[in-house]
């Protein structure tokens, strides 16, 4: 255990570090949770270990696991060293994953993203890392977004209640090297309302795509809105959301996102109006539509949006009627979703979502159990440290001192193991978070599918319109032909109807094009989902497994040492 020769600076330093930890661990018996003691030993250890990490590899000493400064320094010293001073075989063991566990997350390519991030956005690293792993060809381009610095601001212009309308803005900083963005660093202030606007505009512009869902609006009082915790939660959620947008190959280049990230001051995107005013507008239009004074045909530019979110109540009613007819009347609509492949895929997505939900839940179960283990192990260690001190202080016989020494060994190991469990868990959380991410993505998939079905509904509605218009013309022509010379009023009516048909035809064509476009987007996105999901899940599994292996090895070593030290007792038991 203790090298008999002094082999140089590094070895002495290493030895001192471990002793330091052991003595530190023993010096806080009264500390129940042990937190203070731990942080003391932590910081001392950290300073000792970082100097260790910075020394270059000394040829006379065994290879030391050098990890970057921001990873946990407690893992730096090797678990134990044999007294064998011959270095050529002191550490040559089969490749141990104890050495490897940090590499996936600490490679320099990802460390760029690590710089400047707050300490509590650790979980975000996985997003940036995923971007990298999926597109090896474009490793050179990136968008890095940070949300920080929440501040309260007053809406001076519109407040009915003086000083009443306060809201929070966040600082959004972007760093990118995509030429399209016309710049490399941007900094703007945005409020949550702006994010809602962005999300709505993206939903309109990118129908059929799997658009990451935005964070929820919270219908809460302004009191809660300004609470520290809530603001911090929202900040984290916003950052996650924007980073997901930046990870989407199409959306990251969108004008909407660019405007949001770059344009200082007021967000230059049309705001969404609330449901009430939309309905009001629609209600105002409706009578005119019904009496034929206003255009009853959907304008082409409106056709490309679903009826639901708009102001055209008449259109809403028509499409509703159509969907009812589809479902209940038993009549086959003029155009149906025939793509079998799509339908199968849709069902499969449904199944996947279910499985992901279950997996996500059980993953949380593992995390909780690992957490408990770590805590209990630590508490056990502390209890034995107290016992050790006690026995030493009150010793009347040598057997007590021997026991105290044994307990100390056990306690030290338990505390070490406890730390390993906790680190293992922190990593596990990061890895299994992928499951949660994809579960969230399912929402986006539903959105894209619903874009498709509402576009289809629009097409179906227009086709029904057309056919009913045509049949009206037929009837009128039939009736008109019975009268000699034609029926002036009927003929006029026919002409009007023909006009309407032409407009409706235009609308129909636009609608069909839109539907086809959305179908195409769906297809592309589904393919992308398959590729990316497989890669991400594979990474997740690899990370998870490597992590488990690495820490299990470390923990095993810690206990093996104690088993070795107490092996004398083994001979005595029967």
């Amino acid at each position, binding site marked *: 255990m203790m090298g008999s020769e002094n082999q140089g600076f590094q070895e002495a330093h290493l030895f001192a570090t471990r002793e330091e930890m052991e003595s530190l661990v023993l010096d806080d018996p009264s500390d129940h949770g042990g937190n203070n003691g731990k942080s003391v030993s932590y910081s001392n250890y950290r300073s000792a270990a970082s100097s260790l990490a910075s020394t270059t590899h000394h040829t006379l000493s065994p290879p030391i696991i050098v990890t970057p400064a921001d990873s946990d320094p407690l893992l730096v010293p090797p678990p134990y060293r044999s007294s064998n001073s011959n270095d050529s075989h002191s550490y040559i063991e089969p490749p141990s994953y104890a050495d490897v566990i940090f590499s996936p997350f600490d490679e320099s390519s990802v460390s760029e993203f690590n710089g400047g991030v707050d300490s509590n956005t650790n979980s975000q690293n996985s997003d940036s890392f995923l971007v990298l792993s999926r597109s090896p060809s474009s490793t050179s381009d990136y968008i890095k977004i940070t949300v920080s610095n929440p501040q309260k601001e007053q809406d001076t212009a519109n407040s009915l209640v003086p000083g009443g309308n306060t809201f929070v803005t966040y600082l959004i900083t972007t760093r990118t090297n995509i030429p399209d963005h016309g710049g490399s660093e941007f900094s703007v202030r945005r409020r949550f309302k702006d994010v809602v606007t962005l999300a709505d505009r993206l939903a309109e512009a990118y129908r059929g795509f799997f658009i990451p869902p935005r964070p929820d609006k919270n219908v809460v009082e302004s009191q809660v809105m300004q609470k520290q915790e809530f603001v911090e939660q929202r900040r984290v959620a916003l950052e996650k959301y924007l980073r997901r947008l930046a990870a989407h190959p199409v959306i990251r280049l969108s004008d909407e996102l660019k405007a949001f990230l770059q344009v200082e001051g007021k967000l230059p995107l049309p705001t969404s109006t609330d449901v009430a005013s939309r309905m009001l507008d629609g209600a105002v239009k409706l009578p005119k539509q019904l009496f034929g004074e206003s255009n009853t045909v959907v304008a082409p530019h409106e056709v490309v949006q679903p009826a639901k979110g708009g102001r055209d109540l008449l259109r809403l009613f028509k499409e509703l009627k159509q969907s009812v007819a589809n479902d209940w009347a038993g009549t086959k609509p003029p155009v149906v979703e025939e793509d079998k492949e799509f339908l199968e895929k849709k069902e499969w997505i449904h199944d996947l979502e279910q499985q992901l939900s279950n*997996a996500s839940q059980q993953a949380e179960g593992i995390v909780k159990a690992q957490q408990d283990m770590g805590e209990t192990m630590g508490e*056990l260690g502390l209890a034995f440290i107290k016992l050790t001190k006690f026995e030493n202080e009150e010793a009347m016989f040598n057997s007590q001192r021997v026991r105290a020494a044994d307990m100390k060994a056990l306690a030290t190991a338990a505390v070490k193991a406890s730390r390993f469990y906790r680190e293992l868990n922190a990593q596990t959380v990061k890895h299994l978070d992928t499951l949660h991410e994809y579960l969230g993505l399912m929402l986006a998939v539903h959105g894209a599918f619903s874009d498709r079905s509402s576009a289809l509904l629009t097409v179906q509605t227009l086709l029904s319109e057309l056919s009913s218009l045509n049949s009206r013309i037929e009837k009128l022509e039939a009736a008109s032909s019975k009268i000699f010379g034609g029926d002036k009023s009927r003929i006029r009516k026919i002409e009007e109807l023909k006009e309407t048909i032409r407009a409706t035809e235009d609308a129909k064509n636009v609608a069909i094009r839109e539907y086809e476009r959305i179908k195409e987007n769906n297809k592309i996105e589904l393919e992308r989902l398959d590729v990316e999901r*497989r890669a991400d899940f594979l990474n997740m599994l690899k990370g998870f497994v490597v992590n488990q292996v690495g820490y299990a090895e470390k923990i095993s070593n810690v206990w093996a040492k104690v088993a070795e030290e107490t092996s004398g007792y083994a001979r005595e038991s029967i």
Partner: protein
Amino acid sequence: MEQPRSVSGASLSPRSPSSPPFLSISVTDPVKLGNGVQAYISYRVITKTNFTEYQWPEKFVIRRYSDFVWLHGRLFEKYKGIFIPPLPEKSAVEKFRFSAEFIETRRQGLNSFVNRIASHHELHQSEDLRTFLQSDEETMQRLRSYETGIFIKKPADLMQIFKDVQLKVSDVILGKEKPVEESNPEYEKLKHYIFELEAHLAEAQKHAYRLVKGHRDLGQSLSDFGKVAKLLGACEGYTLGKVFSELGAKSETLSIRLQKEAHQLLMNFEEPLKDYVRAVQSIKATIRERANTCREKGELAETMKLKEINLGKLVLALSDRVGEAEIEYNESKAESEEATRRFETIVRRMSDEIVQFQEQKTLDMGIAFHEFAKGQSQLANSIANAWRSLLPKLEACSFTQ
């Protein structure tokens, strides 16, 4: 441990002087008997010995927990000053559930109990032990119900209550407020040590219990996760799906391994700690006994003095009650001397016992720690190996995507 600690000069003699004396006992074969509330477990107690005092060289009897309680009580009464080996807990609640684990831990506890008695240099000579090991079941039942039927509590507990009452009464009579206590700084230190030790050990045991539970919970979570991973694998299909399925299978395997370890931990780590706590409680009982005896000694010494003074007065007064008084005085003197002897026996025994106790506990704990560390190390290795076996497949997967 089967051999008596001191082989020489014991009052029990081996059958054949050439072979070493031995008394080997095992408590085995738990069987549930009876129904409902009256259900109990019976154990087979097998004795192999070459002591002549024992009627048979090999004999087995059927005993139940209350029989062991009887034996414990008798030893406690007769061998004051000795730390009687502790019994496993009574636990009225668990009895109804009679889980396999409970039965096994109880059996082991009872086995340790009798074997420790058999290995103790004084206790192994006990007649009550012989009765316990060799009497037929009816005799045992009679003895047991006599002691435990009439008195609901353990004999020792009841005696304690009587003595406490005695103390208060005699205090009033003698006009004393405080009982006589020894002033022995080393002994005070020991008492203080024992009381604090119990608290520390109880805490350690509590965490050991949680650790056992922690292993079980982790095992359960891995099992649950394994199941859903398999389902997810079925959904995913292709190579990735296979990997998920294998991961799920490994997870389930590890779950079983964890449950096993939890059991080992219970038996080899938690139980020894509980045993340690019980041993300390036994010492506390002895401490109480010593205090009682000390008090008695003091009281009887006082009484004797009073009688002596009284006698002296009567002698001077040439009273005709001198004879009576002399008899009283002599009786009182004998009692006082007897109490003093008893007290000194306790003190002597305790000082031997405490040395033994510390050594034994260091040994017991050493074994427990070793098993614990070994178990944890092996568990971690199994976990590492299980997960490691997946890595080649994971590597292969990334090439065949």
